[in-house]
């Protein structure tokens, strides 16, 4: 008992160091984005929004952003849809070799991305397909589906089967049951899945680098800019904007999830969610 407070101090110290290590680099991003110097170093020179305004009239950047949006939105929707099918089948039905099949679907989770990227590239070359944003989307879907399944699994597992049966019993069709009962109840999981897969796709680099044609995505564009030291502060500004976007998305998603959990009378902090 006497050891209690001391141990707590130690844990507190550990937690603080951990947080600093985790977030200090992230905080550097906005600091240098507003620093009036092309050199990324302390001491800071002065305040400027020049780097942000330079982003505004950079058409290559805008193209890359547009490409990334197309890829990330398509990836999020396709992988969430496929993930929903797989999660539903895995939770609800028994079929031969279920474990093996589910294992194979989840495999990209542990495969090094570079291996996935190279093998997809070889395959596409062999098939004689030209590289485009669609090949990037295909690659992203492959790595995103496992995450989507993981999120939606808990959503479907938490869905009492008798709710769907009750709807059916009350005269509703399969599609009507999905619309009126199943979908509203798994919606928090769907939002989580869309968000996770969107985020993964948005900042995925290796697959996008290997599988894209002339259209580059944002991470590939940023990588190409890093060769020019003068462009570095602009990259910092861009990073700051992306950071804000991610945080906003997370907060919005969490808000919807909590509201829906509350409406169902569940404890928001113990249900399927990210935070």
């Amino acid at each position: 008992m006497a050891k209690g407070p001391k141990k707590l101090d130690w844990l507190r110290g550990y937690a603080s160091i951990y947080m600093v290590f985790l977030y200090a680099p992230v905080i550097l991003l906005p600091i240098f984005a507003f620093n009036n110097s092309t050199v990324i170093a302390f001491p800071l020179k002065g305040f400027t929004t020049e780097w942000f305004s330079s982003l505004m009239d950079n058409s290559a950047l805008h193209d890359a952003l547009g490409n990334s949006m197309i890829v990330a939105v398509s990836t999020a929707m396709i992988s969430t849809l496929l993930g929903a099918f797989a999660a539903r089948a895995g939770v609800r039905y028994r079929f031969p070799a279920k474990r093996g099949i589910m294992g194979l679907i989840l495999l990209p989770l542990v495969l090094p991305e570079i291996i996935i990227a190279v093998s997809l590239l070889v395959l596409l070359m062999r098939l004689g397909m030209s590289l485009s944003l669609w090949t990037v989307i295909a690659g992203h879907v492959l790595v995103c589906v496992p995450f989507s399944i993981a999120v939606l699994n808990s959503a479907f597992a938490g869905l009492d089967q008798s709710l769907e049966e009750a709807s059916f019993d009350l005269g509703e069709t399969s599609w009507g049951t999905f619309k009126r009962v199943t979908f509203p109840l798994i919606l928090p999981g769907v939002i989580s899945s869309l968000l996770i897969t969107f985020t993964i796709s948005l900042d995925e680099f290796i697959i996008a680098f290997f599988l894209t044609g002339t259209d580059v995505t944002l991470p590939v564009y940023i990588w190409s800019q890093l060769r020019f030291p003068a462009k570095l502060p602009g990259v910092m500004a861009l990073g700051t904007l992306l950071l804000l976007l991610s945080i906003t998305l997370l907060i919005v998603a969490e808000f919807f999830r909590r509201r829906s959990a509350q409406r169902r009378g569940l404890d928001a902090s113990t249900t399927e969610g990210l935070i």
Partner: protein
Amino acid sequence: MTAAKAEKPIITLDGVTRSFGSVQALRGVSAEIREGEFFSLLGPSGCGKTTLLRMIAGFDEPTTGTITLDGKPMAGIAANHRPTNMVFQSYAIFPHLSVADNVGYGLKKKRLPKAEYDREVEEALKMVSLGGYGPRAAHTLSGGQRQRVALARALIMRPKVILLDEPLSALDKKLREQMQIELRRLQRSVGITFILVTHDQEEALIMSDRIAVMFDGQIAQLDSPEALYRKPNTQRVASFIGVMNFLDAKAVGEKGGKITLDIQALGTLDIPASALPEGMRPSEISRVGVRPEMMSVVMDGAKGSGHEIAAEIAESEYYGDMTYYLVSLPGKDEPVTISMRNTAGRAVLEPGSKTRVSFSPESIVVFR
């Protein structure tokens, strides 16, 4: 007129079986369920009650055999096209909808004018004494209220049959007893056929017009509560419905509408030949049964009725209104159970007391 209507079968089960791989959940169930009756499926866990109910609802199909509902064979007809509605054991209240939207869920398909829809929902809620609860969120309801909502949701569909799978098992004892009576009264007033699944024999006896006792995927006996209790067909049914004392017995004579039995511990006595179930010959009798309340412990000075034998109290359990005695009879190893109502001034006997036990031969049930 009403009697004729009551006799008409609303559901006919004919040789219904269901196998899950190597598990035979139902092994040939045949029965007729009458229109407007309160019918119970009673049996121990795993005997196939839920399986049978789900097949009537349309969630499952028989492996062999047929189910006819209101004159129509049900094969290939899905749950959403059957005139049945189910009250689930978990109630299956839609958690994201209000009470009114839950109750009106099945009505939405009918596209009624708003005013009429609202009126029907409120009416259904009133029927289950939840008038005014419509706007409440479903998840704020207590267990008993959820159960009522589940019932209102089924009633509003005006189905031919309402199916209830252990609807009261999640409620505490007081509430359960209250709901049993309420459910029974509601069923009488709406006149819809109710099929109740339960493993609680007392619940089945209280609520039902008729009860099908099921063991191992088969109906062991289908009868009115009173007939089941007084004239169980088999020892298994007898001990599932209430308590019964069993004694070895064999017929030693038969004449003039009487059968003479030689019964373990009770000696020779005559029973009326009418006590024999149909199709059973006296030579087939191997045991008899007596309910605890059909015997009495003769108190000091009191005069017993019918036959009397010497006995000794082995144990007594005091329940307030009743006392249950375990009584040793000479010639029987296991003591028999006798219940006595604790009327004013009647003593509770201590274990070890010497006493006498009286019983009347009419109360004896014979078994193969």
